[in-house]
Structure formats: C-alpha cells, structure tokens
C-alpha cells in the first residue's frame, strides 16, 4: 500500500543520507578536532545523526497527520484496486467549470424533468375533468335559457 511505500521511501532516503554522511567523512572534515578529541567527535557525530533522523521522522509524521494521509492512502489504495480491471483512461475534469458542473447537475436535471412531466400530466388530467364539468355547466345553462324562452313565447 501507499502508506507502507511512503514509509519505506523515507527510510531509504534517511539510510542513504546517513551512509553518505558517514563518520569517516565527518571526521575527515573536522580532522584536527578529531585528532584532538576522537571520542568527543564520535559522540557529536552520533548525536548529530540521531537528531537529524528523529527530526526528519517527526516532520514526516506531522505532514501525515496534517494531511490525514494514512486515511487518504488507504482510501486511494481501495479505489485503485476497484479500478484494476479497467484499462481505458477515466474521466478527468475538463478545466471548464461550466461543462463539469453541467454533467454533475445532470442527474438532478433528469429528475426535475421527470417530475415536471409527471405533474404536468396530472395537471392536464385535472384540467380535463374541470373542462368536462364546465361543458356540462354550459349545456345546463343553455337548457335553462331554452326553457325560459319557451315559457316566454308561450305567454306571448
């Protein structure tokens, strides 16, 4: 996993750095002091290496904690594993926010369209029933008008 790889790479870096800055090299740079105080030189060198290693490791831990890297590495490993059977390149942001937010909006727009179609259908049905009642009402009013006219004519 990424977490393990990260730790290994940092350890390797430190190992090689310590190997390069060997005691021999240190002593050869501080030759006169080494000749004067070999034990002290050794002690100073060991403390220097130890302190450098612990500072480096502390910094790495801090970076991991701040960035929540352990969790992210584990999560990314899982995502990569799930995509292992896929060969073709995956979608990537186009860099044009309009396009990218557009496709993120799509499911909501499709839902909204389906909703509108449904309520439009319901409204049209409702209106159809109301229209039937209106037509019946108009018919009844015509009937009443005719009856009144018949009575009037008869009296006349």
């Amino acid at each position, binding site marked *: 996993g990424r977490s393990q790889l990260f730790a290994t790479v940092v350890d390797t870096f430190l190992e090689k750095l310590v190997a390069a800055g060997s005691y021999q090299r240190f002593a050869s740079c501080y030759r006169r002091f080494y000749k004067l105080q070999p034990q002290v030189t050794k002690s100073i060198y060991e403390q220097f290496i130890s302190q450098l290693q612990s500072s480096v490791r502390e910094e790495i831990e801090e970076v991991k904690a701040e*960035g929540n890297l352990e969790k992210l590495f584990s999560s990314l490993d899982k995502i990569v594993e799930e995509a292992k059977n896929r060969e073709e390149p*995956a979608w990537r*942001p186009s860099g044009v926010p309009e396009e990218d937010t557009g*496709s993120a909006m799509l499911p909501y727009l499709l839902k909204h369209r389906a909703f*509108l179609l449904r309520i439009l259908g319901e409204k049209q049905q409702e209106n159809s029933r109301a229209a039937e009642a209106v037509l019946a009402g108009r018919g009844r009013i015509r009937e009443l008008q005719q009856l009144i006219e018949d009575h009037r004519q008869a009296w006349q």
Partner: protein
Amino acid sequence: SVNPMAYEAQFFGFTPQTCMLRIYIAFQDYLFEMMQLVESVILKKLDGFPDCKISPSEIRKSTEKFLLFMKEHFDKLFSKMEEVLLQLVLNIPKNVLLPEDKVHEQYPYSKEQFQELQEEIQQLQQQYKAEAAAGQALRAELEEQKAVQTELEKILKWFEGLENICREHGTSNFKESFAFLTQNAKKLQDVLKDVEEKSR
C-alpha cells in the same frame, strides 16, 4: 510541460508538489540547524583547550565542507525520493475515477444534449404554468356558472309559480280560457244588442 496534478489535489486537498516542497524545506532546515549545533558544540569543547591551535574559522571551514557534501547528497537523494513519491504514492493512475466523479461517467451528455435538456425543462415549466392558469380559469368559470344557473333557475321557478297560480284558479290553459272568455263576452254583447233592438 509541468503536470499540475490537479486531480491529485482534488483528492488530497493539496498538490503533491507543494507537499514535497514543504518536506524539502523542512529537511533542509533541519540539516542546517543540526550543522550549526554541531559547530557550536565543537567550539564550546575547544574552549576547554585554550592551548590548541584550532581557530573558530577553521571549524567554520570544516562545517561548510561537511555541509556542502551533505547538501549535495541530500539534494540528489531527495530528488529521487520525490520522483518515487510523485509517481507511486501521491498520484492517481489514469484509469482511476474518484467516487465523487462517478456521475460524469454515468451521464455522458454532450454540451448540446445538456442544452437541449435545459430548454426542454424550461418548456415544461412554461407548459405547467399555462396549465395551472387554465385550471384556475376553468374553476373560475364553474363558479360563474353556479351563479348564472341560480339566477336562471329563479326565473324558471317564477314562471312555474305563475302557471301554478293560474291552475289554482281554474285556468290550466290560459289560452283556451281566454278564448272562451272572449267568445262569451262577444255572445253577451250580441244578446245585449238583440235585446236593445227588440225593446226599441
């Protein structure tokens, strides 16, 4: 061409290059700090040897020599470490899609199709508004009809009332009764005329 690693930044919350730069600067600072500390410890130890002929500037030269050597190796090794971390740890392979972006592959709509969809939605919204207005108009007409029907029924009832009164007073067919009355009145007039002539 620099790879901005924007997709990685989306996942991690920082660009990998920024992370590596931070680590580099921190490591470098520690190296310099440690070397300064080493030098100051050596100089302190030398204070205990007033007869020795090692000058502070000599110690400084030694420190610089060792530091230069360490920095060279540090830079080389860090560069290799950075390469590995950017390629294998802080990267998202090309075939990997982050979960939050699944929607882009589930709904592959082109720009034109998206626009069409938006227009269709707008149209549906207008249609719905129009239907809602039509519904209101129909219901308003039903209310008007109720009022008009009530008035017409009142008038019809009045006619029926009038005809009932006539029936109650023995005139079920007003036309016939009126014709009969007119006839009788005419007969009466004729009889009266007769009587007047005969009495003259």
